[in-house]
């Protein structure tokens, strides 16, 4: 007799292993850096997510010690994966690409990696990493 919970945990584990492996295989197989970037940021996140889900189901339902701190790791990875991906993309673009390799933004501006860095104190055009464009009142009192 197979315990259905154990079956679910096993499926999660097998899926996580397959996705983790496919992510790294994609990195070896694809050629362009931007293409390689697609493989790990997606596959590995679900790979680790599956392992953490399996751990949560196993400890929570099979052994009766309800845990939710695995959610923290999942959340942390989901928040940080886009940031690292964007940084790596920026390293690639600054190092290898020229202005003509990319399509125009369609607005009057230029992509921020080619634009001159904002002046110190001029906050209106700041923001390579954050939203940019509109920076809300840096000098105003936040509590007011």
């Amino acid at each position, binding site marked *: 007799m197979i315990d259905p919970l154990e079956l679910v945990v096993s499926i999660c584990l097998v899926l996580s292993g397959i996705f983790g492996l496919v992510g790294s295989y994609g990195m070896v*197989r694809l050629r362009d850096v931007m293409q390689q970037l697609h*493989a790990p940021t997606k596959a590995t996140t679900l790979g680790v997510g599956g392992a953490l889900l399996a751990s949560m189901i196993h400890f929570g339902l099979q052994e009766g010690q309800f845990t939710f701190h695995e959610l923290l790791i999942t959340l942390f990875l989901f928040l940080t994966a*886009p940031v690292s991906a964007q940084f790596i993309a920026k390293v690639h*673009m600054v190092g290898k690409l020229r202005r003509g390799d990319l399509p125009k*933004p369609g607005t009057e501006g230029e*992509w921020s990696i080619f634009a001159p860095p904002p002046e110190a104190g001029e906050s209106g055009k700041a923001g390579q990493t954050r939203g940019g*464009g*509109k920076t809300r009142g840096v000098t105003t009192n936040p*509590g007011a």
Partner: protein
Amino acid sequence: MFDRIFPHPLLSLVLTATWVALVNSVSAGTVLMGAILGVAIPHVTKAYWPGRMRLRRPLLFAEYAVVVLWDIIVANFQVAAIILFRGRDSIRSAWIPVPLEIDEPEAITILAGTITMTPGTISAVLSADGRALLVHCLDTDDPGTVRDQIKARYERRLKEIFE
């Protein structure tokens, strides 16, 4: 008065919940300690985050989260299929500029993160004036469809939540 004590009410709630999850038990002591941290940390860090994030319709955020989670799962299978079964030379990658209608920094950050986590797309860089986002698509025939899909599926929902 309320603003003086809680410069970022949402941040306070998130910090409290994070502390409880970190200790991994719900008791009066943990919640109290979490609440102390949740009140203290926004005060220490408020100089770095002067504006306040405004959520017009926070309940829609739950719907957004479900949509994104589902897309992440689908994205994984699609990307895995492309990696495993497509010839290296038949993968057609494209750069897609996506003009933005939203202008809250928090909303653009969430949109960029969402694009990176979902089907075969990565947000690479923002334009200098903050009005367009450059997206790299792993495999597409029609860049226009991808752009419209991003705008209809994610940006429209974020616009409803934030504005």
